[in-house]
């Protein structure tokens, strides 16, 4: 016992442990988050996907004492759960258990993090799934997610931010079990860890957790500087052609120099919410494209990475990044092939709605840069955000996650600090920020579409051909003149397109 105490003291003096605490005595559970400052940017060249493989093997494998199946058998009646999430710069392991079972669950947490078994059969299983994701799933299950990941591939090309966190077809094939063991020993260490804990835990428990995690590998990892988004020359479009697509899924991105660390972020947050708050009908993009013209299911804008936007209504924590970009998300719009089949009055069209919708979205940004927000819109949007942001942290796990992300950005409590910044903000601050940080002349665009649409769409974009909105007669008949007049302007709005490439789906992420 004496030796044990001594060990803790020595460990504590050698390095400072980073801990975020959120004690909630009325909770019935404990959530532990272990965030390692090690994401896919630490994958060695040619081994992209290694961090994801290592994290998956830890959570989908066994420990020195127990096999994966034995762990599952043990935790089954407790409904305890755990998972890992890898992003570009951080890997987070989350463990959640009811307080009735915390003491029994903890040895498993400890075993997974400190003495993972890294068994060959678990490795085979985990890698098969990862290979399948990069080979097939990303291309075939959601064109929206596909266009978003392709945009990052284009925007960060040549940097350590380029690859999907799951890696690429070729790189995943080359990952060995030894690679994973080495990566764990050098990258998941006590020196790049932040411990987060929420719920009803005791001080003694936390003390034990800290002491145990102080025995993680002792190597001091060298984390490469995060790659920066490239500034394209003009608008650079990549069209990804695939078979059987029903629409055109569009994503755009242009470098953004600030993150949550900057106080200007609050101003940009107001502008972004006004332009295209995620999954809200208030945004200008949504109003113009979906509500007035019924072009698709929704249209939004982003000033930071939003993980799994198709799945979440509120931004999930755990994906902090230093390299940032401003993005527009235009959900799938109709293609010519479908429109021609559905409406005989559109029998002669060559291109669907992709060109028009891109013009309209970019023009909205352009108008905002030129004209700024009005006083009324500014006040309404600020009021909305000050209340809405509280929903980001409506449960203990997310509250803890946001506090941990705050540290990444050099803040203490991002939600509270943003509220304070928002309260002091002026219209002039917002309009200045828009002009300073947003641009429409240079951006990358990815469009995942049907093979039948690709050539004509590429031609239309390249030649800046007018793209009148092709409504069905039944909708067109009721549109007010103001809308049709605006359509005329949009149809010839000049996009600064300098390059258009068509890539076959099978050749993406190479």
């Amino acid at each position: 016992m004496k030796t044990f105490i001594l060990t803790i003291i020595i460990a504590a003096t050698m390095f400072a442990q980073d801990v975020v605490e959120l004690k909630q005595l009325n909770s019935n559970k404990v959530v532990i988050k272990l965030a390692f400052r090690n994401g896919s940017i630490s994958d060695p060249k040619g081994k992209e996907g290694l961090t994801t493989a290592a994290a998956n093997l830890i959570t989908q494998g066994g420990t020195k004492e127990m096999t994966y199946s034995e762990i599952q058998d043990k935790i089954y009646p407790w409904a305890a759960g755990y998972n890992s999430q890898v992003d570009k710069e951080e890997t987070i392991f989350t463990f959640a258990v009811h307080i009735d079972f915390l003491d029994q669950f903890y040895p498993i947490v400890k075993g997974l993090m400190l003495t993972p078994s890294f068994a060959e059969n678990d490795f085979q299983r985990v890698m098969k799934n990862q290979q399948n994701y990069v080979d097939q799933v990303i291309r075939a299950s959601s064109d929206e997610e596909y266009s978003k990941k392709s945009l990052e591939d284009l925007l960060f090309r040549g940097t350590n931010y380029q690859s999907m966190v799951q890696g690429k077809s070729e790189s995943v094939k080359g990952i060995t079990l030894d690679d994973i063991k080495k990566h764990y020993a050098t990258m998941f260490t006590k020196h790049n860890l932040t411990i987060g804990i929420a719920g009803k835990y005791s001080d003694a428990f936390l003390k034990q957790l800290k002491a145990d995690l102080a025995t993680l590998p002792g190597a001091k990892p060298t984390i490469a500087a995060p790659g920066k988004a490239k500034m394209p020359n003009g608008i650079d479009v990549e069209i990804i052609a695939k078979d059987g697509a029903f629409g055109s899924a569009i994503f755009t991105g242009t470098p953004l120099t600030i993150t949550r660390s900057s106080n200007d972020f609050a101003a940009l947050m107001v502008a972004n919410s006004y332009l295209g708050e995620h999954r809200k009908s208030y945004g200008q993009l949504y109003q113009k494209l979906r509500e007035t013209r019924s072009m698709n299911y929704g249209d939004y804008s982003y000033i930071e990475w939003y993980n799994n936007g198709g799945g979440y209504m509120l931004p999930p924590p755990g994906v902090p990044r230093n390299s940032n970009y401003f993005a527009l998300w235009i959900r799938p719009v109709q293609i010519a092939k479908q429109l021609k089949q559905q409406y005989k009055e559109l029998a002669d069209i060559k291109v669907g709605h992709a060109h028009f919708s891109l013009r309209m979205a970019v023009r909205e940004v352009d108008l905002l840069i030129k004209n700024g927000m009005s006083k009324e819109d500014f006040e309404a949007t600020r009021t909305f955000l000050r209340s809405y942001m509280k929903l980001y942290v409506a449960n203990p796990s997310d509250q803890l996650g946001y506090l941990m992300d705050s540290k990444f950005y050099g803040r203490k409590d991002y939600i509270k600090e943003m509220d304070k910044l928002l309260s002091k903000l002026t219209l002039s601050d917002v309009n200045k920020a828009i002009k300073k940080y947003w641009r429409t002349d240079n951006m990358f665009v990815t469009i995942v579409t049907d093979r039948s649409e690709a050539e004509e769409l590429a031609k239309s974009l390249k030649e800046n051909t007018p793209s009148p909105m092709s409504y069905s007669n039944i909708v067109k008949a009721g549109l007010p003149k103001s809308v049709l007049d605006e359509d005329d302007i949009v149809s010839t709005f000049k996009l600064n397109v300098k390059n258009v490439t068509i890539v076959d789906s099978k050749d993406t992420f190479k």
Partner: protein
Amino acid sequence: MKTLMNIVTVLLAVVMWSGSLSAADKILPYPIHQKTLTNGLNVVTVQFDSPGLAAFYIDVRVGSRNEVEEGVTGFAHFFEHMMFRGTDKYPRSKYNEVLKSVGAGANANTSLDRTIYHMTGDATKLETMFDLESDRFMNLNYTEHDFKTEAGAVKGEYTKNFASPYQQSYENTMNTAFDKHTYKHTTMGFIKDIIDMPNQYKYSLEFFNRYYRPEYSTIVVVGDVTPENVNALAEKYFGMWKRGNYVSIVPVEPKQDSARYTHLQNGGIPPALSLNYKGPAFSDSQIDMPALDVMTTILFSPTSALYKKLVIEEQKVRNLGGGASDTRDPNLINIQASLVNKADMQYVKDEILKAVEEIKTNGVDEQLLAKTKSLLKYSYAMGIDNPSTIANSLCSYITLTGDPESLNRLYALYDNVTVADLKMVTAKYFVSSGLTVATISADAEGGVK
């Protein structure tokens, strides 16, 4: 281990219990306050420790199940979109403006049996939420042009979903498994009907008139509120809502007499096998559905012999899962497997059936049954950590029976499930004549017998 023994003891104790549930026996540790207004609108309040925050939900018991007429599949969902198109008092721009001022997370969604409208936000703005919602539920007023325009957004949603082969296969499965019942079509509806939606303006007025009525609806408020305040606001804002008189008659599905097959040719994703048996409707008094929940949890969890064999050891299957659907009318019990190699399709099906037969014949270990009951209860208990999750959960049971207490009754029924019940439901529902097999692979045919 001691804790586990305690749970088993508690579970056994509950098995002995009969009669109405005491507060201690309820899975939801908070009282459910209910008040039915004279017009038939039920108002449900649950107080929850979420300072300054309240979730406001309205559950309308209309979904794609109610789409009984030819040519209007997908209409309940389409109508959900129309509910955001404004009233005289709050035209859509004004509605958005006021909603934005509330700072709430607000949206809606539709499924087979219900449509839910929800807002979660500042509890001090509860009256504004009531005002906004009561106005559109009573006074919705959209133009024919708005109606036609909104149909495009629905087509956009279909377009987005269609990118997933699994969604396409699900659509085929329902269409194949059902002949008469409206579960034949998905909530999105058939694409031909979606394209025709702009022509259905008159039907939309009829739809609103039929279903957007107090007797079809329940208000659920969870969070930093009191039942007294919620009930008073409900009376003030919804008290004058007129009861309707439409009774929806949904066709009864005839008994299926032989196995059915549907196949999607797609080599772009891993081969997939889905086995779908005709199951029962939800009930909070019959043992069948709770027993099926327990049985499928056992069969497909990572602790099952089947999972360990196919996923962990042989690694022929990537994912294995399944369960019975909680729906108002009998629906499918689904088993799905994502395969590594399409050549293993028949093998995987045979192995699943062998595991099912094993339960039919030999049941399961008593201790495993107790552990599974523990899993179900602790899963629920850990999940209810915010007002939205609780409101959503209550709505699930309101949808099924009209009564949120069904939640507590169902979890009490889990305690009553015996090994004999598991054998009984497996023998009753897992029969080849009630099976629909859906496959996805690069081949022209499914190749599964």
